[in-house]
């Protein structure tokens, strides 16, 4: 366990030393969302209808962008091999890495999302739903994404493949999250959707580390 904790600490230090790692996806998130009023229609009534969906699609793409580097550097410099050689639980290791990934990608996205809501005329009633859905939904994106990142870790250009592998798995999250924001916007209850996201998160915490750990072992066993 001590190595898992040390890895979490180390990854936070690495993220602090390479701010591009977390700042670039965040900039990407802001820019993609800013393109919609420019390209489609700046009309507030139209924007307020699509705001939730746009913010969620942008969050999803920004997360994908940050996933590529999750395991590649560790595979290339041999530190993942050291994790495997240490005999520590790879399950815990994957969870730790996903936690750090969420803290430097999903969490900042969640925190700046009200700003985008303002820009896209998100209905006032929908802010809480949006922040809540991002807070519960983005960890799922990190966890599911870690499976794809683990599978493509030793490919030199796995970025696009990772996107193709993982994007379909993100669809259920997107459906429930966007629906929560939309329903909140028209004054309806959205706790069902949030509960569903919560269930998905629980399932992702329980199951995805097994898949990611197996993929990493496969990557390193030759």
């Amino acid at each position, binding site marked *: 366990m*001590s*190595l898992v*904790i*040390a*890895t979490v*600490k*180390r990854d936070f*230090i*690495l993220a602090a*030393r*390479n701010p591009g790692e977390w700042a670039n996806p965040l900039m990407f998130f802001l820019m993609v969302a800013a393109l919609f009023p420019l390209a489609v229609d700046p009309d507030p009534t139209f924007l307020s209808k699509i705001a939730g969906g746009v913010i969620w699609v942008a969050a999803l793409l920004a997360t994908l962008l940050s996933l590529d580097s999750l395991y590649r*550097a560790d595979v*290339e*410099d*041999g*530190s993942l*091999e*050291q994790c*495997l*050689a*240490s*005999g*520590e639980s790879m399950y815990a290791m994957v969870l730790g890495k996903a936690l750090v990934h969420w803290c430097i990608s999903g969490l900042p996205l969640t925190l700046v999302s009200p700003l985008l809501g303002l820009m896209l005329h998100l209905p006032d009633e929908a802010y809480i739903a949006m922040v809540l859905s991002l807070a519960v939904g983005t960890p799922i994106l990190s966890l599911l994404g870690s499976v794809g990142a683990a599978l493509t870790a030793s490919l030199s250009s796995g970025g696009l493949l990772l996107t193709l592998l993982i994007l379909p798995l993100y669809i259920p999250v997107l459906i429930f999250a966007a629906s929560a924001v939309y329903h909140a916007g028209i004054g309806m209850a959205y706790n069902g959707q949030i509960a569903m996201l919560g269930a998905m998160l629980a399932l992702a915490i329980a199951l995805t580390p097994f898949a990611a750990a197996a993929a990493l072992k496969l990557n*390193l*066993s*030759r």
Partner: protein
Amino acid sequence: MTPAKGANQVNLQARALYCERDDRQLFADLSFSVCSGDLLQLAGPNGAGKTTLLRLLAGLNHDYTGDVTWHDQPLQHVYSEYAHQRLYLGHLSAVKKSLTPLENLRWLMASEVPNEDQLWGALEEAGLAGFEETPCQHLSAGQQRRVALARLCITQLPLWILDEPFTALDKEGVAWLEQKMQKQVNRGGAVIITSHHALEGIHGLRQLTLGGAV
């Protein structure tokens, strides 16, 4: 330091190992044992399967037939216990370029939980005094190698498995590392190493040559 009884003894047995890679036989019917006080050097030309055998002994490669046992238990069954008894240093040194030697060593040694004094002492012994807090990207390849090798100054694990540890080291570094290995062997530990380097001076040395007469 005297070796503790039982738990810290080395008893690694390999029986009838066979391994092929891309339809090419690397080694067949290979049997040997490594016990406390042994230094086993795997030798052989490039591509002979030294690293493959080393990773196999470290429990990181399962693509073989035959048995590897640790204290008479199959390696896969006791892997987690085994992993806490052996130190593996691959040809990739697991040193992060944007971290300092101190931070790198702290992470590399995390499972043995050393204190700060030990970390500083190890870096000094590895010839990195004064560079403890310089990011590794500003260090030379040899110095980065020394960061990884500084682990050997702290660790108490009985079995070391080292893949080409002499790479990029200067003459003093090579002498220092040989002396570290000698100490490990003398205190009842064991070392398995792949290297093209001649290690004649070390007591307890055995050579296993792959890709030729075994």
